[in-house]
C-alpha cells in the first residue's frame, strides 16, 4: 500500500460522461493528475469546462451516465459534496455565492471543523482558528473588515476570488479545482490571487486550473495543458500549448471531437 501510494494519482478520470436533463455535456473525459502537478484545462465557452468542475465537486444537477472519478485511488461518484470536500476536493468557484446573514467567520469555522470531524480529527480551538485565518488572510489581502461581513456579500469581484483562495489555504485540499479564477480580475488582483495559489503549490497538492485565457497561466505555470472541446480533452501538451492556443484560437479543434 505504501509503495503504491506515491504512484497513485491524486485524480483519475476515466471515460466520464455526464448530462444535465437530456443534454450530454461531458462526452468521455480522460484525465490523470499525479501528485503535486498543476494541470490546466483550456477551452472555449460552453465546451463543458465548468461542468467538469461541478461534477468533480458533486453538484446534484448533473447525472453521471458513464465513467469513473477516482480521488487518491477511491471512487467519489457515490459521495455527497460535503464528503468529497472532506476527502480533499476544493472547488474555487467562478462566481462565489453571496450568502446574506451568514457571517464569514462562522462559515469558515464550520467548514474547517466539519472537514476535521469527517476525517476523525478534533475541532480547531478558537485561538488556533483565529491564527490560521489571520495568516491566510494576510497573504491574500483579506482584512478583518472583509471577514466581518456576511459571506461574500458586497465583495468586489477581486475580493471574492481572494476570499476563495483564502478558503483553499485554510482547508488544505489535496486537489484544488480553480474554475475561471481569473475572470473579472484586473492585473493587480490576478497577481495577488496567483501568488496565493502558487504559495499552495507544495509538491504534494495537485491542481486543476480551468481557464479561457492563457494570461492566468503566465502567473500559475502549469505542468500540463489540456485542450477541452465539446465535452472531452482533445489535446494535451506542456505549457507552450497554451501559447499556441492563444495565438491560433480554438478553431483547429472544431469538429475534431464530433
Amino acid at each position, binding site marked *: 500500500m505504501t509503495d503504491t501510494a506515491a504512484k497513485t494519482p491524486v485524480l483519475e478520470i476515466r471515460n466520464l460522461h455526464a448530462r444535465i436533463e437530456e443534454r450530454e455535456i461531458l462526452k468521455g473525459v480522460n484525465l490523470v493528475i499525479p501528485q503535486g502537478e498543476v494541470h490546466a484545462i483550456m477551452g472555449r465557452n460552453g465546451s463543458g469546462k465548468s461542468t467538469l468542475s461541478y461534477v468533480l465537486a458533486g453538484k*446534484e444537477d448533473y447525472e453521471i451516465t458513464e465513467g469513473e472519478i477516482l480521488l487518491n485511488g477511491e471512487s467519489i461518484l457515490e459521495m455527497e459534496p*460535503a464528503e468529497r*470536500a*472532506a476527502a480533499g476536493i476544493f472547488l474555487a468557484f467562478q462566481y462565489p455565492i453571496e450568502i446574506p*446573514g451568514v457571517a464569514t467567520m462562522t462559515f469558515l469555522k*464550520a467548514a474547517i471543523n466539519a472537514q476535521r470531524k469527517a476525517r476523525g480529527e478534533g475541532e480547531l480551538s478558537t485561538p488556533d482558528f483565529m491564527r490560521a485565518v489571520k495568516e491566510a488572510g494576510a497573504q491574500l489581502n483579506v482584512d478583518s473588515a472583509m471577514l466581518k461581513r456576511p459571506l461574500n456579500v458586497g465583495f468586489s469581484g477581486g475580493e471574492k476570488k481572494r476570499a476563495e483562495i483564502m478558503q483553499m489555504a485554510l482547508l488544505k485540499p489535496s486537489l484544488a479545482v480553480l474554475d475561471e479564477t481569473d475572470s473579472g480580475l484586473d492585473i493587480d488582483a490576478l497577481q495577488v490571487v496567483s501568488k496565493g495559489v502558487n504559495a499552495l503549490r507544495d509538491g504534494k497538492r495537485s491542481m486543476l486550473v480551468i481557464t479561457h485565457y492563457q494570461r492566468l497561466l503566465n502567473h500559475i505555470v502549469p505542468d500540463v495543458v489540456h485542450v477541452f472541446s465539446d465535452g472531452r480533452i482533445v489535446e494535451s501538451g506542456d505549457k507552450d500549448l497554451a501559447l499556441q492556443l492563444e495565438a491560433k484560437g480554438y478553431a483547429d479543434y472544431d469538429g475534431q471531437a464530433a
Partner: protein
Amino acid sequence: MRPAFPVRLGIAEETLIAQLKAAGADQIAERVTVAGLPTRRVEAYHYTDLKTLLRTIPPLAQPANEATGTALRVAGAYTLSIVNGVVQNAATAPEGVIVGKTHGGVLTHRDDTLVGISNGLTKEALSLDLKGAIGQVIQIDHRIEGEAAHVADATKIFVADDSSVVILETFSGSDAAHVGNHASYIALGKNAVVTHVTVDLGSRSTSHFATNEYHLGDGAQLRTLVVHAGSGLARTHLFPRMEGAGAHADVTGLNLVAEGQHSDITMETTHAVPHTSSQPLFKSITRGRSKAVVQGKLIVARDAQKTDAKFMHQGLMLSDDAEILSKPELEIYADDVVCGHGSTCGKLDDDSLFYLLSRGIPKAEAETMLVRGFIAELIDPIEDEALNEALQGIVDGWLLGDH
C-alpha cells in the same frame, strides 16, 4: 358589514357569548351574537377564519395551583408573571420601573372582535411606568396553567420621554386546548427608544391571540419582533400608530410553522402626522403541511406628508405542502409620501446550499446556516446579548423539531 340575517352560531360562539355576558360585556356579546366569530369575509381575518378554526372555547380560567415556570429564560432579565390572567406579585423592581395593576381592558376600542373580547374579559392588567435608561430586560411571562382555559390578560406600558427599555413578553403554559387572548398597550413618549419582543411558545393544542397597540410620540423609536414558535393556532394583530414627527417603527415578525400549525401576523400601521417612517419586515418559515399568513396594511392620514414606509414579507418554504399567504395593503390619503410593499417566497437557494456543501459542511448543518441567515435581519438588531441568544435558541430548537 354585518350580515342582514343572523348567522348560525357554533358551540364556541355560544360559550363565548355566555362568558361575555357573565362578565358584563354586553356590547361585544351582542356583536358575537349577531355576527359570530370573524370569518374570511372580514378582511383582517381573511386567511384566519376563526369560525372554522375555533371549534370550542374552554371555560374561563381559574387561578392556577401549579406553575411550570417561564418557557424562556433570559439571563439578567427582571421577570413579571401573569398566570391564568392573574398578575403575580413581583420582586423589587429595578430603578425607573414602577409596577402596578389597572382594572379592565387596555386596548383602544375598534371594529375588531378579538379586541372587543379582550377588553370585555380582562379583569386586571399589569401596568408598567418606565423612566430613564433601563438596562435590564423586562420580561413579562404570560402563562396558562392546568386544564384547558380561556384567558384574557393584558399589559399597559408607559415609557417616559427620552427613556429606553427592552421589553420581552413570553407566552406559554400547560399542554391543553387553551385559548389565550393577550393585549399589550405601549405608549412611547418623546424620543423614547423601545424594543418590544413577543414570543409565543404555547403548546400545539393552544390557540394564541395577541393584540399589540403602540402609540409613538415625537422622535420615538420602536422595534417590535413577534415570534410565533409554539401554539397550533397563533395570531398577532399589530396596531402601531405614529403620532409624533420623527417617530420611526421597525415592525418585524417571524412565523415559524410546522406540521398542522397556522400562524398569522396581521399589521395595521397608521401614520397619523407628517414626517414619520416605518419599516415592517416579516418572515415566515414553513415545514410540513402548515400555513403562515402575513397581512400588512399601511394607512397614511391625509396630512401625514413625507411618510416613508415599506412593507416586506419574505417566505421560506422547507416543504412542498405548506402555504404562505401574503397580503399587503396601502391606504394613502396624503400625496407626498414614499410607500411600498413587497413579497417573496421560495425554497432554500440551491446554489447557496451547494456552496456550503462544497466546503465540507454537512447538509443538515448547511441548511441550518442558511435558515439562520434568512432570519438574521430580524434577530441581529436585538442588541441585548442574552435575549439575542435566547431568540436564536428558539429558532435552533424549532429547526431541530423541538417546538
